[in-house]
């Protein structure tokens, strides 16, 4: 067993002092950020009462997506004397936080909290950025089917054509389809003559939400373009999808 092991957690030192309303340090001194998480104080001064820091809400959740649920949960938990289990020797009466009441309670970003090694934090966020750049990585989109009790997620980059995707979706939702049409209906969406039957009937039709937030019928654009623009899939009941396929309806009408 090696004596040294990389056991310690890593560092998350995303400090952005412009945003931070909270000054962790001696009161009367303001913190200057030197960019590497180093905190220096302009002036030292009066005794810092722990009561002040205790009463201040250290909302140390550092998630950049606004996890408002957890943020508000911790917001309500500002320390008050009653919540401290006291053995009657110390009662801390926290004065109100020394922040400007007009400013919203900021998500304080504290040096070295959570205690995660910067090496770990950097490695992992580099990976995430690479994944998000699109070149590699997956493109998971939510798939909902009308009437199904829960949604699924699918990596549309795994497939090379609409046919492959529809096969996969059919498999995924085969247990949920109601009625005689079932997965057969989904498979047939590419067939335009059948399309109108689908739209008129109770069959299911795959639709997707694109980058602009519009709901489109699956199948109109080339596959690669679809993968790039698809954000969400919804397998709609045919009767509801009528409004989505004016072009198809046109084509059909023109043919017959």
């Amino acid at each position, binding site marked *: 067993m090696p004596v*040294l092991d990389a056991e*310690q957690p890593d560092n998350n030192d995303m400090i952005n002092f412009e945003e931070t309303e909270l000054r962790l340090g001696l009161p009367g001194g303001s913190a200057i950020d030197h960019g590497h998480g*180093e905190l220096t104080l302009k002036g030292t001064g009066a005794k810092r009462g722990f009561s002040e820091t205790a009463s201040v809400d250290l909302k140390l959740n550092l998630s950049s*997506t606004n996890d408002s649920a957890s943020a508000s949960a911790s917001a309500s938990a500002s320390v008050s004397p009653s*919540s401290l289990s006291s053995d009657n020797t110390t009662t801390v009466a926290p004065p109100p936080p020394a922040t400007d009441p007009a400013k919203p309670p900021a998500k304080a970003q504290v040096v070295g909290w959570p*205690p995660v090694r*910067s090496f770990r934090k950097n490695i992992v966020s580099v990976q995430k950025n690479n994944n998000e750049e699109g070149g590699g990585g*997956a493109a998971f989109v939510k798939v909902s089917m009308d009437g199904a009790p829960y949604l699924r997620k699918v990596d549309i980059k795994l497939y090379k054509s609409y046919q492959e995707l529809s096969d996969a979706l059919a498999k995924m939702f085969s247990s949920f389809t109601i009625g005689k049409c079932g997965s057969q209906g989904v498979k047939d969406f590419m067939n335009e003559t059948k399309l109108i039957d689908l739209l008129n009937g109770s069959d299911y039709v795959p639709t997707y939400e694109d980058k602009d937030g519009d709901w489109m019928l699956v199948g109109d654009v080339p596959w690669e373009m679809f993968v790039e623009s698809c954000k969400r899939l919804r397998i709609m009941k045919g009767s509801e999808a009528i409004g989505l396929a004016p072009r198809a309806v046109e084509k059909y009408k023109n043919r017959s």
Partner: protein
Amino acid sequence: MNYFPDEVIEHIFDYVLSHRDRNALSLVCKSWYRIERCTRQRVFIGNCYSITPERLIQRFPGLKSLTLKGKPHFADFSLVPYGWGGFVSPWIEALAKSRVGLEELRLKRMVVSDESLELLSRSFTHFKSLVLVSCEGFTTDGLAAIAANCRFLRELDLQENEVEDHKGQWLSCFPDSCTSLVSLNFACLKGEVSLGALERLVARSPNLKSLKLNRSVPLDALQRIMMRAPQLADLGIGSFAHDPESEAYIKLKNTILKCKSITSLSGFLEAAPHCLEAIYPICSNLTSLNMSYAAGIQGSDLIKLIRHCVKLQRLWIMDCIGDKGLSVVAMTCKDLQELRVFPSVHLGNPAAVTEEGLVAISKGCPKLHSLLYFCHQMTNAGLIEVAKNCPNFIRFRLCILDATKPDPDTMQPLDEGFGAIVQSCRRLRRLSLSGQLTDQVFLYIGMYAEKLEMLSIAFAGESDKGMVYVLNGCKKLRKLEIRDCPFGNMALLTDVGKYETMRSLWMSSCEVTVGACKLLAKKMPRLNVEIFNENEQEDCSLEDGQKVEKMYLYRTLAGKRKDAPEYVWTL
């Protein structure tokens, strides 16, 4: 005193290996001290400033393996400014000048230069093993020197170091005659390596048991490497992303089937979820799995993977596995001994595990003894249950991401929960606290944590009493690190002799003043009391009444160190 000739005693001492036991032997009598020091081969120095290299070499001329630790632990979290210290060069220089036949050097949180690595590589003909953990200051040029000059190198293990990559071909510097490698870990390197050189190196290393690749090694190269090293027991995968229908991927799947000896898997520095199924066939052999760097893998894929890992003893994972995923771990990994759950908050994910996951683990994995758990919340009830289910904890480190969060069910502090842990886990050696905590938890720790050696405290406590409980109660305490707690001079000075029984004390953003530190330094000459003064004002002088932002003190026989930067004031 001795009824046996020296040779007999030496022979007996050969069986005594642990540092503590050997230290104990050396205290018995002068004769044993002499015999022990001459036969001692492995030395562990927990603080590189506690003794001078010369003194060490003088005492242990037969030294073969040296372990050194440098910066304080909180340096990992950017609390120690740049340039503080922990330089290895005086050690390597002193060893090189001496007649010590160094074979193994293990460094943690130290500053290592290329010059030092070069000197190391040229000075010790039988040098076998270099392990660097969380170090910095060197480049791939230094690694090239090690590769080129250490003819009998068995182990080069680089863990989480900051290495400047000079894009040279350091890996190609291993000569063709080097066939002795047992362990090679370059996962932390950012740059590319010559894949051809890597494959040839693996091919000529029949004893290679542990190989950890960096991100630049693609999947097809991995496949070729695994073909050449079916004897591998410990594999760190670099890049694991490929089109599942490609020939390379299919080849890899087949190759993996042949690698029945792999018991430890890590890395996945770049991973696509659909590739994970290639690993399923060997999962049932795994005793150790580290997926904590695999940012692209979702909880559901982790769960699918873990269902196959029935023999797992060590698991490092990210919190995206969720409480439900931890239930699966609890059901599947009955032999689990060590669990680490890392946060993915900085990836924009909401914190994903709570007391539920931990309680599930404790119910399913009674052998659990080491825990590092970053979570969204924790309850007293949860901790009490965990304490009941797992009395064998040696290391218990809990980090609630909102550092002062109380029990969300009762809005009480977590004193009772942690109290239950220390009361139940009599073998506890390391403890990290978080959440809302009063002085009460420290009373419990002082009362019950008899074997506690390392304690990490942040944003906790109400008064000096908390720290005093710990200093008075924990007889085995070696390292105490405190940040942002209301502990002040009274606590610091309550038992100054205590600090000579400990390795070190760190206090930052507490209530301690300069005057008290000065007093302590005066009373205890065998302590170095360092204050970090990061104030930019040139004319600043330390007034006694001033609060100390960061203080680090440690026992030492070496006196005040000479390599401290300007901002470090040794009182």
